[in-house]
């Protein structure tokens, strides 16, 4: 007595339904969203909330059977897919569905018209700036309200941190160190990628007083062949 339209559903029926809903919720979450909740724009937003409410509906009333939620779920996925597809094809429609970024401060000047249009008062603007570590509004060059409801801020040039270019310094290239040992297991392909061999690794591990790879919890190597080693205790 779990499936179908049930007038008086028993406690056990609800418990079994809860397990099934849990599994459905997992798959809905797995396939519905590639973006994180913070990145959602208007039409995604509708989807997330309604999906959540729909998925749990069989737990609210015994008369709501699983077939009643599957069709609306698929319908929502269908429309969402259609809108995503249109957004990729046409920029105009994409801006309609996803929304346009709105400039709130342009070159240091507050655009009052845009603030009013989106019901943002000065207090809220200041508190959003504070969250971006800007306590003095005169330091800001641009503030943009993004379609996902977040604010992005760009400081005036003179207020930005000094970078190596300003001082004509050469800086190390950004590189992602490769993991070569993870929990005592050696990754040979990363060893080859960094152009070293196992003998080289063992020689260098000896400097860390390690004689066996299984004693290493994590070892990474960067493009300058610099090792980082974390031992197991």
């Amino acid at each position: 007595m779990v499936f179908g339209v049930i007038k008086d559903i028993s406690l056990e029926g609800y418990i079994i339904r809860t397990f099934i809903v849990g599994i459905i919720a997992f798959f809905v979450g797995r396939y519905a969203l590639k973006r994180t909740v913070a990145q959602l724009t208007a039409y995604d937003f509708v989807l997330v909330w309604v999906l959540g409410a729909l998925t749990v509906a069989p737990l609210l009333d015994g008369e709501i059977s699983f077939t009643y939620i599957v069709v609306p779920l698929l319908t929502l996925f269908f429309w969402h897919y259609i809108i995503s597809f249109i957004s990729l094809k046409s920029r105009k429609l994409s801006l309609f569905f996803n929304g346009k970024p709105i400039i709130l401060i342009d070159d240091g000047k507050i655009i009052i018209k845009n603030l009013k249009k989106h019901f943002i008062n000065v207090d809220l603007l200041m508190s959003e700036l504070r969250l971006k570590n800007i306590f003095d509004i005169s330091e800001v060059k641009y503030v943009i309200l993004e379609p996902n409801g977040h604010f992005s801020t760009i400081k005036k040039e003179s207020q930005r941190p000094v970078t190596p270019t300003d001082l004509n310094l050469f800086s190390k290239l950004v590189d992602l160190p490769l993991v070569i040992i993870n929990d005592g297991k050696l990754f040979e392909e990363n060893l080859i990628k960094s152009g070293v061999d196992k003998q080289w690794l063992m020689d260098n591990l000896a400097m860390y007083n390690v004689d066996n790879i299984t004693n290493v919890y994590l070892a990474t190597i960067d493009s300058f062949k610099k090792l980082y080693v974390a031992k197991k205790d």
Partner: protein
Amino acid sequence: MNLYTIFFKGETLNILELFIRASILYFMLFASTKVMGFRQPGILTSYNFLMAAGISHIAASRMVNPKSRLVDAIPIIVVYTLINLFISYLYFKAPSVVSQKPIILIKNGKLIKKNLSKAKLTLDNLISILRQRNATNIEKVEYLIAESTGDFSVAVKNNALPITKIDMSIEPSQDILSQILIYKGKVDEKILKKNKLSYDWIYNELKSNNIDNINDIYLGLLTTDKKLYISP
């Protein structure tokens, strides 16, 4: 298909009827978020959060329950949206009535005990917030403010901040806002005009990149130093 059961209550719904019900409600909710504006997805206040949870439940139950009437959902969503707009308007016009004020928790490196209990934070919470905001040394914190949106802002003392260009008296070049100028071969004339550029400038930039046809460009981005970044 029975038009009556789509809009009013019935005993059961078939697949097509469910599809139509769900579609109508989906587009109503979409229109509703569109009207409520951008701030909705950002969920800036606990109030926004409640509104979103509520309205989606109203719609969802109308999609799946054959005994509920779709015609009820339509005015509910409209009125709900209007209330939300009204409260957003109040936030704008009279913030003191609807929203909480920011609470100052640390001022000049000193804890304000009274405000800490007002914000319902324990000392452990406080230290954890400071760590998350990269301010591990409480002595170096000038201000810690609990914002009305539920987030926390931290100001560290000026001598603990990175050196800025103005501190070193470096004269920086003036930047502009980076924007999409060419989107799949189409030039955005508004942005062109706003930055006082001309088509000749674009063609010159294209020539220096060995591209003769503007339609070959997938993305042309105006960079902060007024150059054209081209991705064919």
